[in-house]
């Protein structure tokens, strides 16, 4: 018995140690197998399973194998002691959370009973509101490991069910406690402030649940991750966008006043809309049923053998419409609908984004106009035909270099001329804030999946390298997103060198560009001495852009990402090599990324995850001409 108690006490991390590291995290209300595994991958400190029958989050299945470092916690309400003991033994619970009117002796029995196969932490819950009498805690001090303070009452002032934490200023005990009740992403700043306050001296952990759900019991991984990262402050803001829309010195919204109402409307609403359970549900559902996600993470065995390293390909080429672009257009079309827009415009380079936009417009029955450079219309003919079949109007951009940059200009002009009913679906992580961030978030499903898929393959979430090609930077942003702040994951960005970086016919922005403003954001930009934007060149229409998204400009500037430039020739050869070694015909954009294995030596046990952003069907003519097939 004594042994039990000692063990339990030992399990409790010393408070001061914790305080230095930050708060522990308990994620409660787990229900579904896959979801439990995904949440466990985030390595919270506790996972809660509710054994109380009268809740939609009632847990009645099996707990999958999860690391022992995550304490499985059973939540009970005035339950019969024997039942609890049975559950603890059956599910190997490491903690028990008591939500009813359990008396001190009852808690003590749990701590002292010999019927448990291994000891449990006992967490006693108290509902705190104005006028809460902290005296009741006294008799529980000796019989619990932790208190958990929750709230039921709705507070005026609109912050949902979060209670007024300053009530804890009067906390008379030294018992470490969990803070609970309505905690969500919106509370991160409040929590940080709270952590600095006197009331938080004995706060040990946060307990979260409903604010991170798509439906009761189903947790939204990306938001949990964001919450955890933000809370831990691991230089977290450094690579993400700040409140003003900047990544370091890059980003912002340099737009004519004519666009202000539209962009501002989007800025004010995008995060709110993306956080709506309805929105998430529809987005996830479409990605699954319509796009065909998750896209496989494929171990490219023969390619790996050839380059003597471990290469995984994230198969965005297998998405409906043949590239990653559809992840973003699904997200944005749902956004447009919620903003009440019924006319959709887009720019396109390779035609992949145009096709992805035309596709979702057909899906939703919305009018679609796609601007495309005259040159690109010629070199991506199959995609032009696809857009037309899907009911889109394809308008040639005749100005400037008649490629992606000019198509973007035309789309922006269209938006200026149609400010009320139109939404502009930008196809890359570029444009005025909030576009780079919004597009990145929609594409971040790529790295979200890589994490759990790599765990299945390699038993770990983080590869040694993530690599992607960069046009504007959307597939790259999605591939990097959840690794940005894990500095042990190295980031490789691949740009198109065209005929060679110094040839005058190139699109290697990080090498040739200087800080400047294009399409509404401050970023690295290829330009003349005089600030005129220069015309890039690449064999790949999707990489033929004189700028990069502001996030990537920041990654380049800070050295977080290594930038490599790949010529037309190198890319074409790498594309053909993938055909021959793996039976996959890649988009020429993706072939640029594939070419890095000739440029850069990886170690045999390095795990390199590469975004295979698109399939090569659209590029067949290019391949035929190049290789004289």
């Amino acid at each position, binding site marked *: 018995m004594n042994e039990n108690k000692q063990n339990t006490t030992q399990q409790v991390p010393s408070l001061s140690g914790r305080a230095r590291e930050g708060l522990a995290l308990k994620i409660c209300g787990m229900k579904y197998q896959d979801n439990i595994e995904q949440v466990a991958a985030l390595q919270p400190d506790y996972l809660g399973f509710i054994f109380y029958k009268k809740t939609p989050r009632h847990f009645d299945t099996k707990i999958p194998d999860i690391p022992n470092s995550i304490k499985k916690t059973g939540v009970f309400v005035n339950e019969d002691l024997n039942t609890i003991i049975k559950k603890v033994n059956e599910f190997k619970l490491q903690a028990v959370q008591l939500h009813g009117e359990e008396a001190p002796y009852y808690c003590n029995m749990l701590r002292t009973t010999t019927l448990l196969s291994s000891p449990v932490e006992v967490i006693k819950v108290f509902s705190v509101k104005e006028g809460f009498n902290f005296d009741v805690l006294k008799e529980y001090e000796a019989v619990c490991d932790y208190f958990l303070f929750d709230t039921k009452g709705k507070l005026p002032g609109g912050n949902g069910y979060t209670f007024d934490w300053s009530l804890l200023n009067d906390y008379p005990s030294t018992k470490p406690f969990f803070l609970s009740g309505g905690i969500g992403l919106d509370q991160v700043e409040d929590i940080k402030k709270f952590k600095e306050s006197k009331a938080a001296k004995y706060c040990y952990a946060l307990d979260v649940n409903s604010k991170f759900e798509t439906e009761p019991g189903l947790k939204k991984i990306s938001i949990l991750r964001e919450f955890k990262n933000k809370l831990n402050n691991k230089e977290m803001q450094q690579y993400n966008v700040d409140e003003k829309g900047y990544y370091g010195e890059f980003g*912002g919204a*340099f737009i004519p*006043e004519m666009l202000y109402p539209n962009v501002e409307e989007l800025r004010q609403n995008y995060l709110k809309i993306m956080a709506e359970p309805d929105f998430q549900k529809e987005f996830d559902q479409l990605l699954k049923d319509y796009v065909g996600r998750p896209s496989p993470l494929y171990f490219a065995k023969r390619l790996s053998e050839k380059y003597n390293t471990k290469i995984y390909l994230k198969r965005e080429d297998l998405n409906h419409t043949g590239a990653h672009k559809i992840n973003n257009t699904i997200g944005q079309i749902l956004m447009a609908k919620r903003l009440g827009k019924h006319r959709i415009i887009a720019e396109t380079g390779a035609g992949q984004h145009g096709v992805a936009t035309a596709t979702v417009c057909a899906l939703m029955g919305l009018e679609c106009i796609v601007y495309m450079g005259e040159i690109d219309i010629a070199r991506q003919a199959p995609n032009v035909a696809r857009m037309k079949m899907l009911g889109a109007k394809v308008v040639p951009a005749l100005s400037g270099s008649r490629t992606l940059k000019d198509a973007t200009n035309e789309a922006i002009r269209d938006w*200026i*001329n149609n*400010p*009320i009913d139109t939404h502009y679906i930008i196809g890359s992580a570029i444009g005025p804030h909030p576009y780079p961030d919004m597009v990145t978030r929609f594409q971040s499903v790529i790295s979200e999946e890589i994490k759990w898929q790599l765990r299945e393959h390699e038993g770990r979430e983080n590869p040694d390298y993530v690599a992607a090609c960069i046009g504007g930077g959307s597939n790259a942003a999605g591939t990097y997103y959840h690794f940005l702040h894990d500095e042990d994951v190295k980031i490789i960005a691949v740009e198109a060198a065209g005929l060679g970086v110094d040839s005058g016919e190139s699109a290697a922005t990080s090498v040739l560009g200087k800080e400047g403003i294009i399409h509404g954001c401050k970023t690295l930009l290829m*330009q003349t001495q*005089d600030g005129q934007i*220069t015309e890039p060149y690449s064999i790949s229409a999707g990489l033929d852009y004189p700028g990069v998204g502001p996030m990537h400009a920041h990654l380049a500037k800070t050295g977080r990402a290594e930038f490599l430039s790949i010529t037309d020739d190198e890319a074409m050869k790498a594309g053909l090599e993938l055909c021959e070694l793996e039976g996959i015909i890649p988009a020429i954009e993706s072939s640029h990324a594939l070419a890095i294995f000739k440029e850069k030596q990886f170690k045999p046990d390095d795990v390199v995850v590469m975004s295979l952003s698109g399939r090569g069907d659209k590029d067949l003519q290019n391949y035929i001409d190049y290789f004289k097939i």
Partner: protein
Amino acid sequence: MNRIQTKLQEDKKLLSIYFTAGYPNIDDTVKIIQDLEKNGVDMIEIGLPFSDPLADGPTIQDSSTKALKNGMTTELLFNQIKDIRASVKIPLIIMGYFNPMFQYGVEVFCKKCQDIGIDGLIIPDLPVDVYHEEYQAIFEKYNLANIFLITPQTSDERIKYIDSISNGFIYMVSSASTTGAKSGFGDEQTQYFKRIDDLNLKNPQIVGFGISNNDTFTQATKYAKGAIIGSAFVKHVTNKGVDTIDKFVASVLN
């Protein structure tokens, strides 16, 4: 008081003309400015051409592309007009996109403007808040008025904010459009002009976009202090060259 403010005090409706520097020919800049003043134009917007003029329609896109092909640069423009104040008295404003100014160096650019006698700048893609936070002090140091655009979609609240940090006039874009896209005004525009007039802003408003002749000039200035003609003038010099500027101005004013 700078030239713009003095001009705005005159008891008349003002005509301002935009042209693209370096177009149709690289050396037309000074002649165009002088002829415009001689023929009774009240204010001039000298367009510094940009490769990617987002807020402009095809006419000014074309004139900008050609001006750049002709060899126009920021430095060359400053050189061409360095002695302009010896012959020209009316307010001169440079209109251009932010990137060329940013590359030139905003402060150096502003200083150069002051040295030459430029009175203000119109930079459509420099947003109000960035200006306010990062550049207003520089503009004021060199006594340059920054002219902001408003559109029918701009909220009253935002218009008032823009008014509060403006020190010349407010550029009232007639309808939601790029330059040269629409011509003629309907009830909607008239109501918008009136709505803005009723706000009693401290800065007078000058209407731009969609003004091409005497008719539209008269309509636009019913509730506003003046009007700006851009694309129509650029079209005129495209078709008729720079020797009949007098005819163009006369056709607008009479």
